[in-house]
């Protein structure tokens, strides 16, 4: 009786066991979408994997570890099976690794082409050996021999598995309608898709191949207009940079999910400032930079004055206007050639040079401030200057006017020197790393760009029609233009205050006073003839006194540092900190560099960053290039720059230094600093 019981139990148990081995983590079966085979058509079958909780199987690219499921078919003659039409997988993290695979349940669909000559009514068996790796924390290779028998018929019906096939089709990638682009810049890969992205929440990319991207790194997606931009990090174990990228891209919009195929060449991203390596690109950037210079606060009034003169002159002889345009252009070009020549001579003499070095001289800064102050006074109406300056329009008719126009061009260049327009930086650095004629060529392109707007106005009369008609507004506008000039002078005075001491500022202000007084006397000399000679000599004395005062402005010996967490940059200090494995952040700045000050204001001097620096024990080294400093110039050049700002972060240890963008926010700095350190050969 007892024996019988055990026997019954045993048979019951063996019967209740499914046809899978007990140890299998994945139960696989071969299923079809329809109930019958129709000759000549396509049969939709699939390997259905039911995966134990906590376990997973892999996609065609398994990611950092694992193996994809493989199927070997045993088919009757005339049948042919496709590859697996993989549904887009999940990202499955395991420790520091990321795998691409499936959990729960997955159908791996395959299409089987059927021959035409199948006898109706017959039963056909298709067989497959499926092999997969099932992994949780450990991995088990599993195998299953699967068969499926279906009748050959004229018509068929959906099988019980049909809904599963339908559902799986939604998980398979669709072809993407719209443009796809891939860009690579150093270790960063950007995928760009154009389309409508209403309700977009997230996107993830699944590469077809290994060793293209760092699987474990978080992927960032953002929408910019009609573009979805997905940012990935390149797999940096190999030096060879991939030139194309393909895979599935899964786009989530709320609870909706749809994946698409992505396949694009990887083009190098746009060259950034400081990395211009091609003369044509350098020329183009110099030219564009020159055009943009016209909009700078101190240059714009000069251009406006010239344009105003043209408005007054609209009835005058065209020939004179055209000549004036060329003379102005020539004035700009000659000034740039002189500037380029002087810089080249300085370089030849062994000086460390860079754009803006002229601003390191307090005399130059003082002189420029004075010049802007005087122009402001003239524009503001302190004196009419014998109509010769402000009313340049009338002068155009005279030969003397061309000389004035020439110097207006020169003036535009001088007041433009504190400004570096976008594009210019890279072009100028390139200019000074090449032979002298390339330097002058690039300077010429910069000059042509600067002169272009005025040249167009003179050469193409219809352009003048877009300027308003002459009237009282011109006087008011001219007077208004004095104020940007004064503002620029105030800024330069502040730069000077950082370069010199109270005595230097006193001398500078005295010079401004002397010039102002001289101008007032000039006004008087215009009206009282008998005193003219006497007054003019007094003017000369005051002007000379002013010039003398400016020339006496000396750089201050020391610069006071207000930062509590910073140290003054020196190569020695940097090396010492690096040797001690300390992380270091280097900020190269100058008082006359507006970008630098902006960055300090909105990023570097924020509480958020100071806390971050303190927390991560990062030393903040600040190098001041306001005055000449060969050590800093050499340092800048080692990063392909010859101007400020430059921000470099040195992670602890031997990792490569990270160069930060020239425009900062506190968040971008933190992101850059928390980036994985890059070992090996530095770019």
């Amino acid at each position, binding site marked *: 009786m007892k024996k019988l019981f055990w026997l019954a139990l045993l048979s019951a148990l063996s019967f209740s066991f499914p046809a899978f081995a007990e140890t299998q983590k994945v139960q696989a079966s071969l299923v079809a979408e329809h109930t019958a085979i129709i000759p000549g058509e396509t049969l939709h079958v699939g390997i259905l994997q039911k995966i134990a909780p906590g376990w997973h199987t892999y996609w065609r690219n398994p990611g950092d570890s694992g193996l994809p499921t493989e199927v070997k078919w045993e088919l009757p003659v005339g049948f042919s099976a496709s590859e697996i039409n993989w549904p887009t997988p999940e990202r499955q993290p395991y420790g520091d690794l990321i795998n691409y695979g499936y959990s729960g349940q997955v159908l791996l669909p395959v299409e089987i082409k059927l021959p035409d000559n199948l006898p109706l009514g017959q039963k056909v068996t298709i067989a497959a050996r499926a092999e997969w790796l099932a992994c949780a924390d450990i991995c088990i290779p599993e195998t299953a021999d699967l068969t499926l028998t279906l009748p050959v018929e004229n018509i068929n019906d959906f099988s019980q598995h049909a809904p599963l096939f339908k559902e799986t089709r939604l998980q398979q990638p669709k072809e993407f309608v719209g443009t796809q682009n891939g860009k690579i810049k150093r270790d960063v890969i950007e995928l760009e898709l154009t389309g409508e992205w209403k309700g977009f929440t997230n996107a993830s990319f699944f590469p077809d191949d290994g060793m293209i991207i760092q699987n474990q790194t978080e992927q960032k997606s953002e929408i910019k207009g009609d573009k979805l931009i997905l940012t990935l990090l390149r797999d940096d174990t190999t030096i060879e940079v991939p030139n194309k990228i393909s895979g599935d891209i899964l786009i989530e919009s709320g609870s909706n999910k749809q994946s698409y195929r992505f396949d694009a060449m990887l083009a190098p991203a746009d060259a950034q400032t400081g990395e211009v390596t091609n003369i044509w690109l350098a020329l183009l950037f110099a030219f564009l930079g020159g055009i943009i210079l016209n909009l700078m606060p101190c240059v714009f009034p000069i251009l406006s004055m010239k344009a105003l003169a043209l408005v007054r002159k609209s009835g005058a002889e065209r020939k004179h206007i055209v000549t004036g345009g060329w003379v102005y252009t020539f004035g700009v070009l000659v000034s740039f050639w002189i500037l380029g020549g002087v810089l080249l001579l300085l370089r030849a003499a062994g000086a460390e040079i860079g754009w803006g070095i002229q601003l390191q001289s307090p005399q130059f800064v003082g002189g420029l401030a004075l010049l802007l102050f005087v122009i402001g006074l003239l524009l503001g109406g302190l004196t009419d200057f014998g109509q010769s300056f402000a009313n340049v329009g009338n002068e155009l008719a005279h030969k003397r006017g061309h000389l004035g126009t020439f110097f207006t061009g020169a003036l535009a260049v001088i007041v433009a020197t504190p400004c570096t327009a976008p594009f210019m930086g890279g072009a100028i650095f390139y200019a000074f790393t090449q032979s002298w004629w390339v330097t002058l060529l690039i300077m010429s392109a910069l000059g042509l760009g600067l002169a272009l707007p005025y040249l167009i106005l003179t050469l193409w009369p219809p352009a003048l029609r877009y300027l308003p008609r002459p009237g009282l507004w011109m006087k008011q506008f001219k007077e208004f233009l004095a104020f940007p000039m004064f503002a620029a002078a105030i800024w330069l005075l502040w730069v000077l205050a950082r370069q010199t001491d109270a005595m230097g500022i006193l001398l500078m202000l005295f010079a401004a006073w002397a010039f102002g007084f001289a101008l007032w006397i000039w006004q008087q000399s215009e009206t009282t003839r008998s005193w003219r000679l006497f007054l003019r000599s007094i003017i000369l004395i005051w002007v000379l006194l002013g010039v003398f005062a400016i020339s006496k402005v000396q750089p201050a010996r020391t610069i006071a540092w207000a930062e509590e967490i910073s140290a003054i940059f020196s190569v020695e200090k940097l090396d010492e900190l690096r040797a001690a494995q300390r992380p270091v952040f280097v900020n190269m700045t100058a008082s006359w560099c507006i970008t630098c000050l902006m960055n300090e204001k909105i990023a570097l001097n924020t509480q958020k960053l100071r806390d971050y620096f303190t927390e991560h024990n990062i030393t903040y080294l600040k190098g001041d290039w306001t005055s000449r400093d060969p050590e800093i110039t050499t340092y800048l050049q080692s990063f392909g720059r010859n101007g400020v700002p430059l921000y470099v972060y040195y992670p602890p240890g031997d990792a490569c230094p990270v160069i930060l963008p020239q425009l900062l926010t506190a968040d971008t700095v933190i992101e850059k600093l928390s980036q994985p350190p890059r070992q*090996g*050969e530095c770019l």
Partner: protein
Amino acid sequence: MKIISTFLIALMLCAAPALAAVQTGAQAPDVTFTDVNGTEHKISDFKGKTIVLEWNNPECPFVKKFYESGEMQRLQAEAIKTGAVWITVNSNKAGEQGHLADDKAAKAYMEKVKIASTTYVRDPSGDFGKTYGAKVTPHMYVIDGNGKLAYQGAIDSIKSTKAEDITKAENYLVKAMTAVKDGSKISPASTEAYGCGVKY
């Protein structure tokens, strides 16, 4: 344009992974490690010799494929015969598959599979593995006599757990070792390693 690209570059920088990576051709990190005999070594101690690093997990089917067929032991013996140093590293942490609790357990495993490598290193902290960016078992590295990373990646070209694939596959490790010996160009110098994830 500069501004836009600067911002784009700045925006794309992502969270830090703990797993480092060494670029092929770069100086191999000079890790200090203690082998199962309690002897301390540094990678730089073997300067002038070719070094093979092999990541091991006794239970991993991909590792078993090479040890149960005797292929790994054969490769180890051959490498050592040419004067190379072969270091087998186990970076699986305590409580995970493949972890070896102590040097005794490691020696028992070495005895069982008749391992032929120069030395065996237990790295349960994962420091050694993470420094080299070892992702799977077996993950293979070849360091040349100058201390430069000459090869990293898979042991061979067929990603499977089946021993019968060994003879059909192209052995990348042997190829790299031969090229290092001849001083010729290593190709491929980086491949995608396959296997079980290292259990850090």
